[in-house]
């Protein structure tokens, strides 16, 4: 039985897989593929000992030459989240048709063929972190052994290396695709893989939290500057900003809002911290640019996202992952739920269970764990900091491999990992044409928005092409 208990481990696990054959149509072309579902052990880089049994689903295009065919490793974050969101939501051969931000579709959402799958570009491996899904530590180690920034990165490295050797993929162009905490995991992992001699072609950072210390909601008490343009996008969505631009004009509006956040809001917060209250003009502009009433900004200028979600419209609670999704606010103060998470989570839990056993023929009596409690015991310390700043890791990967392509993808309506925070974090790398940021209409999981997923697929296909030609 698989368990997410921090003290759980497996005694003598086997590497058993289920292999099934399928087909998906992309741009009118039928792609026959093989799904391999099951476990593979990560072997310690130092001793070769099996330390963790990773659960993964690999989709490989039939008939392709393994040595030249790209392979991409996908994982979500948390820490403690299963990779179900990327697996059934983004670019796999099947996806849950959630129609985000629609809130009236019947649930559970149907699992449909994914016309935007990346399988035409790369083989896809969706792998769960230790302690979630069906991944678990191997004795004498326990799940908790890997509940830390560094230990987690190392064991993921060992999985990727083992996967490449076992499947004759050592020469394949390799990509990583991590979401949220999977962003910092990617930075740590990319550095470790490059040091170990595994060349990466590119890394995709989906709504990443690269530096926990730059996010005023999770890491520090510094100005919430990185959130302001996300408030503006949200206010605009609900026609509460002045002006309230239509979606087509949103990028231009948000360019202005980035400037406003940096040159007006940020200095005003710092001035306030030094004792100087904000000007009436600034407070007027805060209300106009975010949709949140002036008196709220006057009472406290440096506002985190929870206050914004609760108070943008009285009695209504906006989502954290996707502010476009709302519910009447029945939460106790300090215990606000996320309507956008509540909306989709039951469908993902239901469909992953059905899909793994029914379609992929992988059976186990265990429950597929969407979320563990790893976060409560996670060792967040990294390179001398209480909370991880992984820009040095990403920089170290680039120092070792100057051709490494980095692509960050963010949603305008995400107040978990705001797009402007990602831009500011990555700007620390300096000018580098290999580092790009793309933003889309939508939340944390931009790919759940049908229009944005189509645009993302086109952008990703182009990006993979440039990375492979690099």
């Amino acid at each position: 039985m698989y368990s997410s208990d921090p003290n759980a481990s497996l005694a003598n696990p086997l590497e058993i897989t289920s292999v099934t054959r399928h087909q998906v149509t992309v741009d009118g072309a039928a792609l026959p593929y093989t799904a391999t579902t099951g476990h593979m052990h990560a072997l310690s880089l130092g001793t070769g000992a099996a330390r963790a049994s990773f659960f993964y689903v690999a989709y490989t295009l039939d008939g392709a030459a393994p040595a030249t065919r790209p392979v991409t490793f996908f994982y979500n974050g948390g820490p403690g989240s299963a990779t179900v969101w990327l697996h059934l939501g983004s670019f796999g051969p099947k996806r849950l048709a959630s129609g985000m931000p629609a809130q009236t579709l019947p649930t559970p959402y149907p699992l449909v063929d994914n016309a935007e799958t990346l399988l035409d570009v790369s083989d896809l491996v969706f792998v769960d972190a230790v302690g979630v899904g069906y991944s678990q530590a191997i004795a004498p180690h326990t799940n908790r052994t890997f509940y830390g920034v560094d230990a987690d990165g190392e064991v993921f490295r060992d999985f990727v290396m083992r996967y490449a050797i076992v499947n004759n993929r050592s020469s394949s162009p390799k990509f990583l695709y991590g979401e949220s905490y999977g962003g910092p995991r990617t930075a740590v992992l990319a550095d470790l893989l490059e040091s170990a001699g595994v060349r990466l072609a590119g890394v995709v950072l989906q709504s990443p939290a690269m530096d926990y210390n730059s996010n005023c909601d999770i890491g520090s008490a510094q100005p919430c500057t990185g959130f302001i343009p996300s408030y503006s996008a949200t206010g605009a969505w609900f026609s509460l900003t002045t002006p309230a631009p239509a979606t087509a004009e949103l990028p231009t509006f948000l360019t202005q809002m980035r400037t406003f956040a940096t040159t007006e809001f940020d200095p005003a917060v710092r001035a306030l911290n030094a004792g100087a209250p904000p000007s009436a003009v600034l407070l007027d502009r805060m209300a106009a640019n975010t949709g949140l009433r002036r008196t709220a900004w006057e009472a406290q200028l440096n506002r985190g996202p929870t206050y914004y979600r609760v108070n943008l419209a009285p009695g209504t609670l906006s989502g954290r992952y996707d502010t476009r999704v709302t519910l009447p606010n029945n939460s106790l103060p300090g215990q606000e739920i996320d309507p956008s998470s509540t909306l989709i989570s039951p469908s993902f839990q239901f469909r992953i269970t059905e899909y793994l056993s029914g379609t992929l023929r992988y059976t186990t009596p265990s429950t597929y764990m969407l979320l563990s409690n790893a976060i409560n015991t996670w060792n967040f310390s990294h390179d001398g900091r209480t909370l991880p700043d992984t820009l040095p890791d990403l920089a170290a990967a680039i120092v070792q491999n100057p051709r490494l392509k980095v692509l960050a993808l963010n949603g305008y309506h995400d107040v978990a990992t705001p797009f402007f925070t990602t831009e500011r974090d990555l700007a620390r790398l300096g000018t580098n044409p290999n580092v790009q940021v793309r933003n889309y209409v939508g939340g944390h999981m931009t790919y759940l928005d049908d229009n944005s997923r189509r645009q993302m697929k086109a952008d990703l296909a182009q990006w993979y092409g440039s990375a492979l030609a690099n």
Partner: protein
Amino acid sequence: MGVPLRIDLRSLAAAGAIVFALPFNAFAQGAAADVPMLDPWVPPALKAKAAASRVGATQGAALRADAEAKLKARFDAAAGEVGTLTRGEAAARGLGAIARDFEAIDRRGAGRITFEDYRQFLRAGAP
């Protein structure tokens, strides 16, 4: 699915309207009906500790120095007191990239490299 209609929350809330009902179907019962939005998130005590001990973020040349410091720490841990690595030692101690590029790093042809040799190789733009 087209672009959903934009909703004027202010007027809906003012009218006391229920915006949307929470979909809660039988299929969700017994399963994890609501997964908390804990990505990313840190326990409150840790957040307080981090806020108290915040260190500034480096960028540009200083960030590059941080990156090189990481690589030096890794090199030094593998090299031990000797302070140098042969190709075989690099390979055996997990530094596969150094083993792979050893000849290009070892410009003196000494068969042993220092971290300074490696740093110069990296600053020249790696392989």
